[in-house]
């Protein structure tokens, strides 16, 4: 493998930041700064904020992330499989079908349980 290719990606990670950071710094220099207490309050349609925003939310959101994680891990296997597919037999397709079927079973269970419903 050619490490040189990755130097470019590494540089992109290291230097790419400067591209959006530049206008922000420029904005800092150019923009006026006249804060006052009202301006610094949270923007909630003119109503004063009660408590911190870092409060509890519903576990609903967690379920979608959870189902996503399980399906996302699947791609650890799906990508090499798809890549090698032209050199694999029909049996490989069958194996992958079984693999996906088991995940679909879990998805259907979640669905039937009503966990995917936005209540």
């Amino acid at each position, binding site marked *: 493998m050619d490490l040189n290719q990755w130097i470019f990606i590494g540089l992109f990670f290291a230097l790419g930041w400067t591209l959006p950071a530049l206008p922000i710094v420029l904005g800092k220099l150019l923009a006026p700064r006249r804060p006052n207490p009202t301006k610094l309050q949270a923007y909630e349609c003119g109503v004063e904020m009660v408590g911190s925003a870092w409060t*509890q939310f519903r576990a*609903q959101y967690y379920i979608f992330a959870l189902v996503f994680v399980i399906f*996302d891990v699947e*791609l650890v296997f799906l*990508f090499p*499989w798809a890549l*090698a597919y032209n050199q*694999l037999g029909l049996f490989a397709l069958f194996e992958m079908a079984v693999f996906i079927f088991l995940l679909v079973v879990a998805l259907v269970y*979640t669905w039937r349980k*009503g966990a995917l419903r936005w209540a």
Partner: protein
Amino acid sequence: MELTVESVVFLILSAITLGGGLLVVTTRNLFHAGLYLMLSLLGVAGLFVLLAAPFLAGVQVVVYIGAIAILIILAVMLTPSVTQMPAIFNRNWALNLALAVLFFVLLVSVISPALDDLGVDNWSANFTEDSPAAVPADSIVQLGKDLVDPDQYMLPFEVASVLLMAAMIGAVLLVAPGKAGDEGGDE
């Protein structure tokens, strides 16, 4: 170790990995700890690239940073009292720290050639090689073949699917809404 581009990159990535890891276990604000965890995982992905396993590096970012770390951060946001805990370590933390450091020193004494240099025999393992054979160009394709090969990893591959199914069903069972008597007052 002479100073080549590779060794410099290695040092930077190791620093990111270990520094991120240290911040994860010492930061009080768990949301920040989650972000540091992502940083550390990104460093590990970089190490994978250096080790000529770009596929695993990609998966590391997609699965670990893009899914597992996000799941952890979501959990942090869903259990908010965590950001204002009085003490972040338990009472035995000094002992535990000593234990972890001791463990680290022991490991390093085995894997690094430092003790060999000091003249201690038969202690360090021989891990000093630095010019391994080249990785075949089609290693990802080979990985795909091996994973579904009945003589190689077919069984673990299918078992992994069962594990994922079980994990998903179990986790959904735990957090699914609408179970009587399970709500602690957030609904």
